[in-house]
């Protein structure tokens, strides 16, 4: 870790936090994808809460607030909670999010009861046990980052090795089972890796940040790609980038790191949801508006051609495109306008021909073309074939 930390042009403690945030963001981004895509986004929340009884039991058994011991307790309880969650989801009709909620409620209730029991035992060392779960990035040690990096390396290697099997299990577990993949083992493996990352991460940055860091990178990446491997890579990059930017920004502004990272992550998600090419809300709205305008222009041009008169409300739209110009007796078509009218008429004729004779064309592309892209989808050769069919009214050539 040493040389890496020295390479970051920041004071030592800040550099540790930045590196920790990068490692955590990368790991959470990649591992979180498996949770989000299976509808278990909030598994991090459940695991973070499920750790409480584990911490209590570890304290009761060990009798001290020894950090590695409590960490083991938290890890065991977290894994147990995750396995119970998977078992409920697999064997009953309870949906994934309710199974997560059940584990969260049951384990945390148990933790609360154990806490009162411990408090009643009169052990002076027990104070602050419940706040164990809520970490502070500023108190991050180089050794914490090293542990996280090791876990990160192992789990990323495991993901890289099993990504083909994971893809099947993720999107079609039944098919995976039928071709002999160990579906249950793979699910448990990916969940256990996630749990370990969450337990370590919660210690570092707190439960709430973990929840957001598992979800936000995947939701962002999902807007930008439809393929699993690019999604995993992108989620990792987004997670690490958000982590680094949040850590650097918060130290510069003197704010707590975790909340800044979370808000930054939400900002990126919102940007992706609004603006992502093809999928984004604004992108879609823009595309819809564009299509509506085109349709309105087509309708105006056709009406002009049919009635010899341009509808008043379309004059401006056509003038802006350079298709209409003012004349002595109202607007008249420019040369480009006449070409546009011709083009619309041809397009419509071609579409009519397609509807009537399209089935006779021998297409190698099974896609069904739409009225706007018909000529481009068919290609010049088939277009002339279609025209010929229409001209001979379908008679064999």
């Amino acid at each position: 870790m040493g040389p890496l930390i020295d390479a970051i042009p920041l004071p030592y403690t800040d550099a540790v936090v930045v590196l920790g945030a990068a490692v955590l963001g990368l790991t959470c981004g990649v591992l979180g994808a498996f949770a989000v895509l299976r509808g278990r986004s909030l598994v991090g929340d459940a695991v973070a809460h499920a750790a409480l009884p584990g911490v209590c039991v570890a304290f009761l058994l060990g009798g001290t607030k020894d950090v590695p011991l409590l960490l083991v307790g938290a890890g065991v309880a977290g894994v147990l909670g995750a396995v119970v969650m998977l078992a409920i989801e697999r064997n009953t009709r309870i949906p994934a999010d309710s199974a997560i909620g059940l584990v969260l409620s049951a384990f945390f209730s148990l933790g609360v009861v154990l806490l009162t029991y411990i408090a009643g035992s009169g052990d002076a060392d027990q104070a602050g046990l419940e706040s164990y779960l809520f970490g502070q990035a500023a108190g991050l040690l180089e050794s914490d980052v090293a542990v996280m990096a090791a876990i990160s390396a192992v789990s990323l290697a495991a993901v890289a090795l099993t990504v083909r099997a994971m893809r099947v299990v993720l999107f079609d577990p039944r098919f995976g089972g039928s071709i002999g993949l160990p579906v249950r083992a793979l699910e448990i493996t990916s969940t256990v890796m996630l749990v370990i990352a969450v337990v370590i991460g919660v210690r570092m940055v707190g439960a709430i940040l973990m929840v957001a860091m598992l979800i936000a990178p995947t939701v962002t990446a999902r807007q930008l790609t439809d393929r699993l491997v690019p999604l995993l890579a992108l989620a990792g990059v987004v997670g690490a980038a958000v982590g680094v930017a949040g850590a650097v920004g918060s130290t510069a502004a003197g704010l707590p790191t975790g909340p800044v990272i979370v808000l930054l992550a939400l900002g990126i998600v919102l940007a992706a949801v609004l603006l992502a090419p093809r999928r984004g809300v604004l992108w879609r709205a823009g595309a819809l508006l564009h299509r509506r305008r085109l349709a309105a222009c087509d309708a105006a041009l056709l009406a002009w051609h049919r009635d010899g008169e341009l509808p008043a409300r379309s004059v401006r739209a056509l003038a802006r495109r350079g298709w209409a110009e003012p004349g002595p007796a109202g607007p008249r078509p420019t040369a480009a306008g006449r070409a546009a009218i011709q083009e619309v008429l041809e397009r419509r004729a071609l579409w009519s021909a397609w509807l009537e004779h399209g089935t006779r064309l021998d297409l190698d592309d099974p896609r069904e073309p739409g009225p706007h892209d018909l000529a481009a989808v068919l290609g010049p050769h088939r277009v002339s074939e279609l025209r010929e069919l229409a001209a001979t009214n379908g008679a064999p050539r």
Partner: protein
Amino acid sequence: MTDTAVIVLTAALTGTACALLGPFLVLRRVALLGDAVSHAVLPGIVLVWLVAQTRAPLAVVAGAALFAVVCVLAIDALRATGLVPPDAAIGLVFPALFSLGVLGVTRYADGIHLDLDSTIYGEIAFVPFATVTVAGVPLARATVVLAVVVAVNLALVGLLWKELKATTFDPEFSRTVGLRPVLLSRLLLLAVAVTAVSAFEAVGAILVVTLLIVPAATAYLLTDRLAVMVAVAVAVSWVGAVAGNALATATDSAISGAMGLACTACFVLALLAAPRHGLVVRWIRRGRRRRPAAAA
């Protein structure tokens, strides 16, 4: 009324209010909304502190309710884009609001003890001590508030029963027959926000989260009919309140935790012994299917 009776009654009323809504949340795959709201109210508390410099319960609850509403509406808006799954929407919105609250605390209210535990999350054991006088009779404040919440939820679910049912199971169908699934979803979420915030103040967050999910999930294992599901969920929450209180008294432990465990015990029982969806029945059925195969 003895203090114990007040505590059990308050818990049972909380359970009723939650169990009336819980089944819809479980069926709509937004079961963790209660948990989300429990974290998302922090900026509301900070805001009230900034504006009015007060930690009076009424003002704090109003501020919390405001952000609970912001939280559920933001989740609904994100989900409605169709780009973000509902559970991911929950997990994006509440950490952000919570973070906003934490930033507010560190920036403006540093040094003042302003955290969720001390301002909004009540402890059910203290319910009997805060009283109001209604028609000359001193009653526990939380009990009165929750009775009102139960009445409101009952009215909502009762009046909009078939609309809620249709939009829960088949939003597309309900849209075509002229119902308003978006509006109804928001109404339901608002009811959850209001219920959760009023109950946090009385009984604490974890018990509310538990009562929204566990009784409904238990009922989901026991029946295929929505009306029965709601009734069973309410019954489970009452059993949880009574048995949990007994457990807490017997073991001298936290009442809310014990009630949560009692509800969980009901769930485990249903999980094992439910007549159609229980594990025991499934094992027997699987055994029966295997036997002829083995004989052949």
